[in-house]
């Protein structure tokens, strides 16, 4: 077995000086002539919940896409766990322990909940597919081990009842939960959540908030999330970075950010 990505132990290192997990320095990204991100720098501490907020079109999702390698910035450096690079391929990001969810739910619609989550274990399974086809010996044992991990996640997110349901048939709120489950199955060190509560009703939002806090608390997973619901952001996040038109306009604790005049201005006139 390769070096498994072990969730970090929380609590103990909270008190000490924060360890920087991801550092983004002077990143700029443009498509043709359009500047999606302009010279943005911020970092994410190990074990924190970092919110990225901003009005529509502020470049939040582009930022996540840069972090997990979908987009390659023209300028800037990204340091993840001490390694610096200008671009990252999604495959590498995944192997390094970065998992994510998508704004509009990107699930494998034809597969069951279970298979979707199992696909999150792809990188952790190593046995030859020949053995897997025979469903025998070490491959079978490996399959069982991974299934156990997946079952724990299913239990954790309380989705036992939809284990066998094709995800395409699930209501939106549950799809979001399955997507989170798939990301968790990767046992990530850094979890990127793109509007995890978009389109949910109040009860679903409360459930999702609880799950996010529990993930952070129990597995010590570092989380970066984009969210529009300011109440949720204030409740969940340790620190908040605010983007507007691709530029960073504020960075700090929820309290600091919400009293920042630039932030207030940026949000004025933007309907939510």
């Amino acid at each position, binding site marked *: 077995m390769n070096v498994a990505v072990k969730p970090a132990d929380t609590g103990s290192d909270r008190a000490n000086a924060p360890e920087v997990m991801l550092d983004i320095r002077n990143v700029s990204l443009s498509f043709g002539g359009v500047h999606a991100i302009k010279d943005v720098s911020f970092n994410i501490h190990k074990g924190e919940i970092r919110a990225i907020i901003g009005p529509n079109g502020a470049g939040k999702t582009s930022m996540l896409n840069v972090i*997990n390698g*979908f987009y390659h910035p023209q300028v800037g450096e990204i340091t993840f766990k001490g390694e610096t690079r200008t671009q990252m391929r*999604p*495959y590498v990001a*995944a*192997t390094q322990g970065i*998992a*994510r969810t*998508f704004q509009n739910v*990107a*699930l*494998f*619609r*034809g*597969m069951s909940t279970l*298979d979707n989550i*199992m*696909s*999150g*274990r*792809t*990188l952790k*399974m190593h*046995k030859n*597919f020949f053995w*897997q*086809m025979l*469903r025998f010996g070490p491959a079978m044992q490996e399959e069982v081990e991974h299934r156990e991990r997946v079952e724990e996640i299913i239990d954790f997110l309380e989705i036992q009842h939809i284990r066998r349901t094709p995800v395409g048939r699930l209501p939106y709120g549950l799809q979001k939960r399955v997507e989170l489950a*798939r*990301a968790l199955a*990767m046992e990530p060190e850094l979890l990127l959540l793109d509007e995890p509560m978009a389109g949910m009703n109040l009860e679903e939002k409360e459930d999702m908030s609880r799950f996010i806090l529990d993930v952070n608390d129990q597995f010590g997973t570092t989380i970066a999330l984009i969210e529009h619901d300011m109440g949720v952001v204030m409740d969940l996040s340790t620190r908040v970075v605010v983007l507007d038109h691709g530029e960073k306009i504020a960075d700090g604790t929820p309290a600091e950010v919400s009293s920042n005049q630039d932030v207030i201005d940026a949000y004025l006139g933007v309907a939510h």
Partner: protein
Amino acid sequence: MDILYNILIDPFVQMGSAPDFFLQVLWSGFVAGTLYSLIALGFVLIFKASGVFNFAQGIMVVFAALTLVGLYQAGVPAWLALILTIGAMFALAWLVERIVLRNLVNQEEIILFMATIGLNYFLIGFGEYVFGGEPKPMIAAELGLPTGSTTFEPFGGIVIIEHLDVAAVVMAIILVTALAIFFNKTRIGRALRAVADDHQAALSVGISLNQIWVIVWFAAGIVALATGIMWGAKSDVSFALQIVALKALPVLIIGGFTSIPGAIIGGLVIGFGEKLFEIYWGGLLGSGVEGWFAYVIALIFLLFRPQGLFGEKIIERI
């Protein structure tokens, strides 16, 4: 009245009066059907994983068979030639991914389709250059494929079953079962379905598209090789074989482009259908029914059930 009698009654009278011959027709339809299914399977694999209709699938059948026979004629022992051919199909898959697919990622589907047409002509040219254009006999006996036949005597008549046909059917069944297990039960199969469903999401969980494409093209290459061996053993190995591969199109229209069971059933429908029609109704329409029957059936399907028997329902969202 005569016409109606000839269409609606006479064929069934014939079937009933010579049941042994009827069985013989059914069997030949079944054998043809399994081979059609195999070819269609090659298309489905690639279509599922990359959304590309691989125009070169037919030529891959020829290319695989030619490589095998060519190597043997160059003095390589049959078993080694088989292994080397498998290696060649892997090399082909790898090269296609490296040279074609990787550079065309995120392009329109039509562009990828055009690329496969290019691949098609490249393989024809390359095959002719290396192995020559004349037909070659398949090395069936050397590969250990059975010859001869067994005669049954049901209903007081005779039915002849070629051993080669039995081998073809058995091999098709083994291949299909293996592919089904591969798709549904292994990590790579799961990854493959994931890629088919959503590229971005697949990337985000660490599935490597490049790796998946190589595997899929390789699997399609193996299927092509198997088809080439069986079909080649029945006739000869020549570029004319790619015409047979075109039959896969109606099979896919009937079965649906994304469904493995669909490819199998579609293949059988065409196989049974064209043999029965040729024998019992063919006389009414002049011979050569086998040539166009499949396409007519496909046309009917396109009119009434465009997604095929097992294809994913096309739902227009408003």
